[in-house]
């Protein structure tokens, strides 16, 4: 009881302190505590034009021509696990179950994959840091070489607990965390959900995840229902992500060059 009175007193103190700060800020009735003001990056005209140009069209990078239903089918993306391994929340993404084997609906997969690739392309266009994560030992080398080829990062080894949540302590102050994490397999080696999904959600980092029929799709920002066990399917995903990121980066270089060429000719206001 004494502690409760103490807490109430403390909260009252905190409020009054906040109130005094608010008053000193010009009389607005904000109830927020004094926070660290992050400096807004001042964009000049050219880079703003470059960034806004990408947002004009829905498929600015023309990624719909990369994904075709036949390619997904031939890479066996539609094959899921057996009925007994199914996760309850993956049921909306399944086309059906054939002789106890779940079949993933490729129409939905194609849409989700296009959205995920589009988001990846926009992140890469804006110079974001992309991290590929997969704990499947069979495809570790493939994922690492994909990341190396497109100039991004990969983490296919044991995930230490505080990698994202304790980043400044583990890696040093001012470390830059990834802007997008792509999970090519959302399970770890004991068939539990990868810790990185939960941590990325905690740190407000968007995730793209390839979900098989035994995975939990809840926390993934851009889920892509699909097979993650067959080498053909994994090679397809890696190839698609690599092409998307390379395309986006090339487009950025191209747009900057064009804007840079056109800027001196137009009179600046």
């Amino acid at each position, binding site marked *: 009881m004494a502690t409760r009175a103490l807490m109430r007193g403390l909260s009252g103190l905190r409020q009054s302190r906040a109130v005094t700060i608010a008053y000193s800020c010009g009389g607005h009735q904000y109830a927020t505590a004094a926070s660290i003001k992050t400096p807004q990056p001042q964009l000049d005209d050219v880079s703003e034009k470059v960034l806004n140009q990408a947002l004009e069209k829905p498929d600015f990078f023309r990624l719909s021509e990369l994904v*075709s239903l036949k390619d997904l089918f*031939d890479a066996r993306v539609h*094959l899921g696990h*057996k009925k007994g391994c199914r996760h309850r929340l993956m049921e909306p993404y399944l*086309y059906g179950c054939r002789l106890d084997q779940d079949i993933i609906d490729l129409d939905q997969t194609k849409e989700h994959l296009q959205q995920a690739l589009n988001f990846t392309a926009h992140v890469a266009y804006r110079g974001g840091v992309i991290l590929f994560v997969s704990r499947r030992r069979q495809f570790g080398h493939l994922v690492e070489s994909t990341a190396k080829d497109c100039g991004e990062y990969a983490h296919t080894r044991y995930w230490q607990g505080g990698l994202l949540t304790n980043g400044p302590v583990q890696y040093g102050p001012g470390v830059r965390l990834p802007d997008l994490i792509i999970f090519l397999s959302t399970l770890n080696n004991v*068939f539990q959900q990868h810790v990185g999904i939960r941590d990325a959600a905690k740190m407000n980092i968007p995730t793209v995840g390839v979900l098989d029929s035994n995975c939990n799709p809840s926390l993934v920002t851009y889920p892509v229902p699909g097979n993650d*066990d067959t*080498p*053909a399917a994994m090679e397809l995903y890696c190839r698609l992500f690599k092409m998307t990121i390379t395309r986006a980066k090339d487009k950025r270089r191209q747009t900057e060059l064009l804007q840079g060429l056109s800027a001196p000719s137009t009179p600046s206001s």
Partner: protein
Amino acid sequence: MAALCKVVSSFRCGVRLPSSRFIRSSFSSDSSGASGSDQPASDRPRSGFAAAFDLQSELRREAEGSAAGSRGSSPGQEESFASLLRRSPLIQMGPAKDKVVVGRIYHVVQDDLYIDFGGKFHCVCRRPADGEKLQRGSRVRLRLQDLELTARFLGANTDTTLLEAQAVLLGPVEGREGRETQNQNQNQNQD
């Protein structure tokens, strides 16, 4: 069996065609009456083999005509997922127990051969006593037992899966056999 499926599936999509087209173009079949052109399909007094023969020959002619015309026009966007799935060898095969398929060895670890036959998982077979010539890339015949080894253990919520298929190795594919009429699951990575 593949030919039978093709005819059956074209029959199924042929039923959706408007009946007038069917009647107008049945002039060429020898036993049809020319008077049937204005009547709806339900009034035509065709029965049994004659009706079936007319329908099949008409559909086959149309399928050949449309296939020749449309293959060049739109690349790869015609088939829906449902029709791709229905015609895929995996579905046409049926239950995997005791089906003979052709696989390809993609990894070798001393005596263990990792064989991919076109399913979701690979299977691992021990090298037979006379299997010295079975190396990475050789094609083998398998008798499948299971596409994925799973079991529900006591106290578990979901099945535990081994991420492997089970098959019995029958031997290398002999000579240049081409397409066998037995249910074969061609390896989709090859060719």
